[in-house]
C-alpha cells in the first residue's frame, strides 16, 4: 500500500476525536444504565446490573413509558407515510412549472427554518381559539409535518435533479399513460430514495420534541415522556430508557439499510458485462 501524508494522520486523528465526541456521551449513559439498584445518575458506578432495564418494564411511579412509545411509534408511522406521499407528489409538481411554485418553495424553506417553538405556540393558539382539542394525532401530527415535509421535499429535489427525463419519455413512447409512467417507471426507479425519505420522516417524528411540546395534548409522545422523566425521575431508569431508544433507532436504521441492501442484491443476481465491449 502507498504511504500516507502526514496531514492524513493529523486529520484521521481529528476525525477519531470527533467520533469520540459524538459517541462519548451516549456511551457514558449506556454504561450508567447498567448501574446497580442503588446507583444514581452520575458516576461512580454503584455495582453493575440490568436492574434498571427490568425496572423500565415495570410500572413507573409517574407517567406511562410504553403508552408513550406506542403513540410515538404510531405517530412516526403516520408521519412517515404522509411525508413520503406528500413529498413525492410535491416533488413531481415542482418538476413542472406552475403558478405559485416559487411561493410554495419559500414557504417550505420557511417551514424548515422557523423556530420550532413558534409552530408549537401558533398551532396551540389556533386550536385553543377555535375550541379544538389538541391531540398528538391531530395538532401534533400537523406540527411534525411542518418539519418532515420540507426535508422530504428537499430530498425529492435532490432525487429529481438526478432523474433522467428520458425514462419518462421512453415510457410515454411505449404507450404508458401519465399515471402508468409514475406507477411503473418513476416510483420504482426512485424507490431507494423513498426509503430514505421514509427513514427521515419516521425518525424526525420519533425524536421530535419542540414542535410536539405544546401540541400533543393529554398524552405524551416518547420524547415528551423522556423530557418529563428528566424532571421527574431521579434514577438511572432514564438512562436505561435512553439506551433502549438509541438501540431502537439503530434497529430502525439497520432495517432500512438491510432493505436497501437486499433490494440491490436482488437486482444483481445475474452476472455483469458492464464496462465491457460488446
Amino acid at each position: 500500500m502507498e504511504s500516507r501524508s502526514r496531514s492524513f494522520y493529523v486529520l484521521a486523528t481529528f476525525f477519531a476525536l470527533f467520533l469520540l465526541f459524538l459517541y462519548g456521551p451516549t456511551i457514558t449513559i449506556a454504561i450508567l444504565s447498567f448501574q446497580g439498584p442503588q446507583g444514581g445518575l452520575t458516576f461512580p458506578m454503584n455495582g453493575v446490573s440490568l436492574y434498571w432495564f427490568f425496572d423500565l418494564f415495570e410500572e413507573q411511579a409517574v407517567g406511562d413509558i410504553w403508552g408513550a412509545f406506542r403513540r410515538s411509534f404510531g405517530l412516526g408511522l403516520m408521519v412517515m407515510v404522509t411525508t413520503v406521499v406528500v413529498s413525492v407528489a410535491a416533488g413531481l409538481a415542482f418538476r413542472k412549472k406552475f403558478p405559485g411554485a416559487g411561493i410554495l418553495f419559500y414557504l417550505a424553506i420557511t417551514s424548515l427554518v422557523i423556530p420550532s417553538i413558534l409552530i408549537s405556540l401558533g398551532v396551540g393558539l389556533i386550536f385553543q381559539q377555535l375550541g379544538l382539542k389538541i391531540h398528538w394525532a391531530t395538532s401534533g401530527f400537523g406540527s411534525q409535518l411542518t418539519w418532515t415535509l420540507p426535508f422530504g421535499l428537499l430530498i425529492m429535489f435532490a432525487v429529481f435533479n438526478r432523474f433522467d427525463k428520458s425514462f419518462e419519455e421512453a415510457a410515454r413512447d411505449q404507450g404508458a399513460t401519465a399515471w402508468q409512467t409514475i406507477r411503473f417507471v418513476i416510483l420504482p426507479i426512485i424507490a431507494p430514495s423513498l426509503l430514505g425519505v421514509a427513514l427521515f420522516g419516521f425518525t424526525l417524528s420519533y425524536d421530535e420534541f419542540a414542535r410536539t411540546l405544546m401540541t400533543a395534548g393529554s398524552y405524551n409522545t416518547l420524547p415528551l415522556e423522556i423530557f418529563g422523566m428528566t424532571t421527574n425521575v431521579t434514577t438511572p431508569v432514564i438512562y436505561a430508557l435512553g439506551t433502549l431508544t438509541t438501540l431502537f433507532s439503530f434497529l430502525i436504521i439497520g432495517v432500512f439499510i438491510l432493505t436497501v441492501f437486499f433490494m440491490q442484491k436482488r437486482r444483481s443476481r445475474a452476472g455483469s458485462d458492464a464496462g465491457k465491449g460488446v
Partner: protein
Amino acid sequence: MTRSFTAWLQAAPLAIVLVGFLVAPIIMIVIVSFWGATEWSIYPAFQFDNYAYLFSSEVTYRVFFATFKYAFITWAFTLSIGFTVAYFLAFHVRTQAMQIALFLLCTIPFWTSNIIRMISWIPFLGRNGIANQTLISWGIIDEPLEWLLYSDFSVILAFVHLYTLFMVVPIFNTMMRIDKSLIEAAYDNGASAMQTLWHVIVPLTKPGIMIGTIFVVTLVMGDFITVRFMSGSQKANVGRLISNDIGLLQYPSASATAVVLLCTVLIVIAVLLRFVNIRKEL
C-alpha cells in the same frame, strides 16, 4: 393548462399542510401579539403594549445578543469541525465504500433522540463527572472545574455536539461533487496543499457551507431547551424567553417576542440565501 392543473393537484397536499400548520399559526401569532392577557387567559385587543414592553426592556436586547452570540460561536465551531471532518472524508479517504461507511458512522447519532444526547453530557461534565475526575486523576487540576457544566461552555458544547452534523452533511455533499481533476490541476499548477485548500476547495465548497450555516444558525436561534438544560436554567436566549412566557400563560407577550424572533431569523436566512441556490445545490 392541464399540465399546471396536475401540478397544482400534486402540490396541493403540501400547500394545505403548510397553510394550515405554518401560515395560519404565524398569522395567529401575529394577531395574538397585539392581544392582552390576564393571568390565566388572553383577550382580543389591539394594543402595542407587548411590543412596547419588549423593546423597552433592556433584558430583551441582552437576550437577543445572547442568542446571536450562541448562534455565532456555535456556527464557528460547527463550521471548523464540520469542514475538517468533511474534508477528511472527501479527500483523504480513498475508497468510496470507506467514505460511505465513515460518513454513516457520523450520521448515526443524528437518528437518536436529541434530549437523550443532551442529558448524556450531564454525568460527563458535572462537578464529580468523568471529565473532572479524569483531569484530577491525571493531576492536571486540583479542584474540579466548575465551568464545565451549567455555563456558556456547556451550552455551546451541547449545541456543537447536536448540530455539527448539519454542517458535515452538506459540506461533504458539495465536496464529493468537486471534480478530483480540479485538485490535480491545482497541484499541477504548483499549488501547495494549503493553497489548494484555500484557493480551490473552499471557494467550491461555499454552497455546502451556506446550507450548513442556514441549518445551524436557525436551529440554534430557535432553540429553547438546550439552553435551559445545559445552563441549569441560568442562561437565556430568545427561545427560552418565549417558552417562559408560554409557561406563565403570557401568550401575547410570547407572541410578540416570537414575531420579532421570526423576523430576525427570516432576515438572516434571506441574506444567506442570496449566496446559494438551494434547489440547484441538492
